[in-house]
């Protein structure tokens, strides 16, 4: 289990559970997870399909409600708060990057990026300036006026990352961010996450991609809704990382 002190953690959970169905059909998607994420830390969660990684991410980011346990974000418990307050958390404290990008097809890149700021009540001008700046940071300033359909997969994901950063979130959650990308695009996204990590952005990444996982401070292996292995990669690798991600030999 993590040795991070909750006093320094920006995000932590205790006994987090998410169950679906009942009786014999009961599915324990997340089953008693304790997690502490320190400010500026990058945590990668890996595991086979259906092990509960994405569900965990949704619970951490307030997209879904747990069946039990606690979720604390920035010193505030968020698992039992109202929908309005939860929306405020999603708007101000967290950002999401999805495998399927989830860009709005009818909006241009810059319009997609400015959307969270507009939902957060910022003025149109401020939101636009911030969006242009973010697109510049992800190397897509020249694609600001393009619709998602006119962008490559990697470019779309970079737009999605820029959008997730729009409200300067405390924690950025990424769910299989390279799952739909080719190798070249994956490298682009990897570099981006690396830059974010260096800039002190707190990141929680669910991934199958060992290269993404390798950029993390900690790697957590998950199976059947539970954490089964945890590896600190920064200044204390257990040596099991290579085995876990298939980079051995």
């Amino acid at each position, binding site marked *: 289990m993590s040795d991070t002190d909750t006093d320094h953690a920006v995000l932590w959970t205790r006994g987090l559970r998410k169950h679906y169905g009942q009786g014999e059909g009961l599915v324990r998607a997340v089953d008693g997870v304790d997690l502490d994420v320190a400010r500026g830390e990058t945590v990668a969660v890996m595991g086979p399909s259906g092990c509960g990684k*994405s*569900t965990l991410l*949704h619970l951490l980011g307030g*997209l*879904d409600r747990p069946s039990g346990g606690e979720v604390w974000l920035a010193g505030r418990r968020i698992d039992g708060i109202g*929908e*309005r307050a939860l*929306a*405020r958390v*999603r*708007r*101000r404290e967290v950002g*999401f990057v*999805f*495998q*399927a990008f*989830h860009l*709005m*097809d*009818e*909006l241009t890149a810059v*319009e997609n990026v*400015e*959307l*969270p700021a*507009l*939902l*957060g*009540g910022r003025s*149109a001008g401020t*939101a*636009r300036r911030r969006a242009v700046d973010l697109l510049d940071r992800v190397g897509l300033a020249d694609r600001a006026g393009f*619709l998602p*359909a006119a962008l490559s997969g990697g470019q779309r994901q970079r737009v999605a990352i820029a*959008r997730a950063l729009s*409200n300067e979130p405390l924690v950025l959650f990424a769910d299989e961010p390279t799952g739909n990308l080719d190798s070249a695009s994956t490298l682009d996204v990897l570099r981006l996450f690396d830059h974010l990590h260096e800039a002190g952005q707190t990141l929680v990444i669910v991934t199958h991609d060992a290269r993404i996982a390798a950029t993390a401070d900690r790697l957590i292996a998950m199976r059947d809704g539970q954490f089964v292995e945890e590896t600190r990669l920064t200044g204390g690798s257990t040596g099991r990382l290579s085995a876990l991600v298939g980079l051995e030999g």
Partner: protein
Amino acid sequence: MGRILLVARIAGRDLRRRPAEAALLLLAITAATTTLTLGLVLHDVASDPYRRTREATAGPDVVASLSPDPLGSQPGDLGELEALADLPGVVDHSGPYPVTGAVLEAGGQLATAQVEGRDPSVAAVDQPQLTQGSWVEDGGVVIEAALADALGVRAGDRIDLNDRSFPVVGVAVTAATPPYPSLSPTGTAENPLQYCPLPSPSPCDEPNGADGGPTPELIGALRRVDAEHPGVVWVTQADARRLVPQADSLSYVMNLRLDDPASAPAFVAGHLPSGLSAGPPGATIPEVVALRSWQQIRDEFAGDLKSNEQEVLLIGSRLLSLLAVASVAVLVGGRMADQTRRVGLLKAVGGTPGLVAVVLLAEYVVVALLAAAAGLAVGWGIAPVLVDTGAGLLGGAGAPSLTTSTVGTVAAMALGVAVAATFVPAVRAARTSTVRALADSARAPRRTAWLVAISARLPVPLLLGLRMAARRPRRVLLAVISIAITVSGIVAALVAHADAQLGDDRGSSIMNERLDQMLLVIMVTLVALAAVNAIFITWATALDARHSSALSRALGATPHQVSAGLAVAQVLPALAGALLGIPGGLALVAAVSGEDTANPPLGQLLAVVPVTVLVVIALTAIPVRIGARRPAADVLRAELA
């Protein structure tokens, strides 16, 4: 043959797979076909009681009347009227009977009456059929049934005719004149003498109350009576003569029977005042003699229904068919989005684009044909119930005859609705690439750049709502059209009602009450269909926007903001439709009536807009709430699956 069976099997199974949608489709088209059927068969239905009354009363084929010379005080030449009985083709007659106008007062109510002097014996032609009491006797009157009904008079009551009191000995119906009140108002406020009873002289001709006649106040009241023909009161000939100050001011009527009743219009046309061939060669009927065929009398009754209820129904059926197109288009659009994968599967197993289009069209054609049959059956069944022929004729409304033309028109309308609404989606589905269809990817939304730019400056609910609406402009257009049609219908009904209120003041309340009932039926159907449309459209929008709504929530929008956005996406088209519907309704009335009509109060018209918006908000509240509350994580996960 195998291909037809295949199409029938696939289409039939798909309909059975979604029975609720099929039922709603059936309902929407049936509403339109029923109204159209009613509009088409009403004339037949209304004509039937007249036929029965004509048979029971030995109704005349031609009614001839003689009025005193309007240019002078010379009495009409009765011999000229009697000469008509000798014309070729005339096989029998009754009369001439003396006739005079009179003011009738019963229980404090006033009416104009045409008092006809009859023999106590049975006439060979036009012997009114008693529905109460007995036939005329000296000092006792018989009142035409519709007039008695309007005044609430029964046999045994007393009435005053020109201030002379008479007991009512009987109530009867006749086919020699349309029942009281005439359903076609004539005259205007500027020309009130047209309201006075014919034939002359009427009390209106003596407005000073001379000779103990009606007072000016009474005349004023009578001039508001909006009836082309007064009610008929039968008295003995002696009593009729006693009601006028001078015998030469009497008019006369004579009822003729022809050897060929169908030739009555030709008989009338051939013996018009200027071209007569009756009596001695070269003689002409003077202009004070008027002839009317039984067909004219029948059409005055049934034809008036045509110009009122039937007109309302035919307009209503057109409005309803337009709404039905909108309903079907929304339903089909929603189903097509759901059927993309099915289309892909059909194509993947070898179905041609043509087969795909035919299968999709076949489903709706089947529903349309069923709706046509249902509409014909329901319309045929309820037409006699809707048509209150009043007390002036024998029996209720008859069963309408469904002619080939009626069946064809109704079926064509139903098919037209189905094909108009499904053709584009069916062709679009047929053209979709198989791979794309199998992937079940949603149709790309439209981008309206200026709307996106404007909405960025608006509060979050408006931002979300405008963008949701802008994604599917065709659906928004359907919503606008749907509301505009409904509001047009409501405004037209308000105008018709205001006009009817004016008519009530002129004394045609029975007709207007019937018209109001008909308008209510149309309005309820219009509003019901529009409500179904609003719910369909909201549901389709919520389904279509589920991804963007979930994403908005993932990015920080509250469920309330998403709900409000979805509501805004419904309210904006409703507002536009309501604003368009007001001039639309006024234009509709102007186009149909072709004359000045009374406008409803401005406040009433303006209230239509907020009421429409509130109704749309109420109707769409549940689908909006359900659409906005679905957990964002579930939707985003499903999109990935």
